[in-house]
């Protein structure tokens, strides 16, 4: 058993944080240690989200924490928001995903594209955890290319009728509302994409758990099917328009993922250091062997670089100058880094590293999803390639 986690901070990055930012980090860190870690292994093995913790997460303000106080949110800056994601994912990527979806992909689009009535109606209920949301963008045949989606919304005299299917939807089967993206015009016209707030109990709406996941097992992932789902006019997010709108949401979530990945890597590093010092082989702790020291040195180096990337990215976001491409760089680097750290930690732990009582393999398996979702590693490579050369490799 590793000692209590006190953070990884080789470069005194804590001194670059404000007192409130550190206090926010401490609350989430303690909560993860005391409330999530005791139950996460069973959740992971049994394949369910720790739903009983949702009210506490809401009460502590984990949902939409960077949105304004007038909507029942904490009104934190983006660095503090990032630190929440880091600490949540130190616990488990599935738990961070839950908060990312609720805040970055459900509350953010309502805040950004919603009417005043929609904001006052939905945001406080989502912040308090009274309602859970999910985000329906990806389709079975349209993942990296969301502009090609075939879900449609047809306008009727008193609202809209939606038809289509969405896949890989986090929180899909637990959600009370879904933010569904659909084409309101021609099927080859991505500029006609609009967002809708769809109650999941609407007739014609079904959500089915996706079975057989070997990653993010403590998170619900579902397929949504919409057959002639009728919603009122007030379901449309009036300021949404074109594929750019859902991509703006993804920028929010990817920002949180860049931070979250650092948390998962920290958990693995922390466990590897502790295990390496305790585990004796050839009459000495395995941490005394150069091969293991090289592993640990590499982990610490990469984590430190990832922390600094996130912090500066957060400061840019708070200043209002952050670009989606900068987010791509951080998401791409940090998730890849975390995948490597988790794998090396698992290897350092030897045979014990495959057991659920150690966290490395759980993080390692989770991070494969994180590597793939919210823009695959490869897509972020191409986004950066386009940014550098001015030439898109995918469009």
């Amino acid at each position, binding site marked *: 058993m590793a*000692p*209590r986690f*006190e953070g990884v901070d080789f470069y005194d990055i804590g001194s670059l944080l404000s*007192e*409130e930012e550190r*206090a*926010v980090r*401490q*609350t989430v860190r*303690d*909560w993860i240690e005391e409330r999530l870690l005791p139950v996460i292994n069973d959740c992971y093995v049994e394949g369910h989200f720790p739903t009983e913790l949702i009210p506490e997460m809401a*009460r*502590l*303000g*984990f949902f939409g*924490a960077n949105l304004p*106080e007038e909507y029942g949110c*904490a*009104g*934190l800056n983006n660095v*503090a928001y990032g630190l*929440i994601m880091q600490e949540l994912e130190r616990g488990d990527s599935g738990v961070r995903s839950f908060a990312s979806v609720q805040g970055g992909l459900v509350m953010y689009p309502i805040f950004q594209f919603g009417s005043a009535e929609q904001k006052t109606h939905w945001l406080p209920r989502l912040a308090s955890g009274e309602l859970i949301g999910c985000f329906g963008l990806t389709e079975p045949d349209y993942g990296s290319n969301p502009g090609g989606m075939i879900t449609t919304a047809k306008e009727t005299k008193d609202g809209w009728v939606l038809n289509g299917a969405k896949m890989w939807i986090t929180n899909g089967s637990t959600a009370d509302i879904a933010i569904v993206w659909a084409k309101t015009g021609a099927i080859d016209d991505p500029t006609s994409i609009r967002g809708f707030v769809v109650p999941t109990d609407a007739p014609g709406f079904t959500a089915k758990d996706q079975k057989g996941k070997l990653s993010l097992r403590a998170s619900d992932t579902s397929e949504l099917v919409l057959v002639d789902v009728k919603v009122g006019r007030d379901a449309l997010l009036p300021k949404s328009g074109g594929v750019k709108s859902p991509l703006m949401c993804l920028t929010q979530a990817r920002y949180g993922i860049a931070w979250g990945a650092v948390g998962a890597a920290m958990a693995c590093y922390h466990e590897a250091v502790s295990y390496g010092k305790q585990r004796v082989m050839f009459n000495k702790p395995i941490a005394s062997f150069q091969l293991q020291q090289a592993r640990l040195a590499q982990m610490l180096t990469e984590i430190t670089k990832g922390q600094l990337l996130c912090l500066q990215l957060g400061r840019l976001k708070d200043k209002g100058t952050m670009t989606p491409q900068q987010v791509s760089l951080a998401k791409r680097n940090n998730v890849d880094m975390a995948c490597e750290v988790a794998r090396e930690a698992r290897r350092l732990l030897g045979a014990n590293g495959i057991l659920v009582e150690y966290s490395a393999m759980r993080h390692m398996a989770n991070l494969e999803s994180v590597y793939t979702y919210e823009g695959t590693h490869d897509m972020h490579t191409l986004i950066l390639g386009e940014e550098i050369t001015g030439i898109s490799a995918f469009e």
Partner: protein
Amino acid sequence: MKIAVCIKRVPDTEARVKVAGDGVSIDEAGVKFILNPYDEYALEEALQRKEQAGAGEVVVVTLGPEAAQETIRTALAMGADRGVLLKCDAIPADGLAVAKALAGELKDGGYDLVLFGKLAVDDANHAVGPMVAELLGLPCVTAVVKLELEGGTGTAERETEGGVEVVDFAQPAVLTCEKGLNTPRYPALKGIMAAKKKPIEAKPVAFEAGRYAVQSLSLPPDRKEGRIVGEGLGAVSELVRLLRTEAKVI
């Protein structure tokens, strides 16, 4: 219901402390400081009492250096209404000097209850709470694990060696709080933001010459390495013999 909670900034219980060059204090470099864990029970109790009453004020009072403001803000983030910092360069080792400064601050405050943690985890003296009660001429109940208040009186349970003692007391009173009294809340994110706007009053304090001084500080000796007595059933009798004669634990 007006409640004062006296809190202390202490090194994190997980911190690996080092003795400073002067031999009588700890080296604070790189040490994280926290709100004394027993004080969290006191604060939680105060917050719950105020919430149940639907009105009142919870004031946190601490004595310490400027950095203790951060400890006050932790308490404000948990829900206290305002803070008072009795500012000094270093907290005197003499608990009575601390108690006199606190009592001076508390005496005209009109508090119904003054709550402390049963001890501060840095010096583990258990002293300041009862001393403050004495200086204020108030009843004192220490190491409270259960509390009931009614009108101007109260009933508290104390855990004593091997049993429970139930005591009645009149308010106002000074109580020191023990683990088990409640489950302290986490500072919520909204609370952390709200704490920035709550008032903290800083007042310099001076002390009389101390009659009590720390002579030296030292860390406990390193624990001796374990020893494997043998393997399998054959080793059991030797293990039992050593547990009896050498370790003397059975």
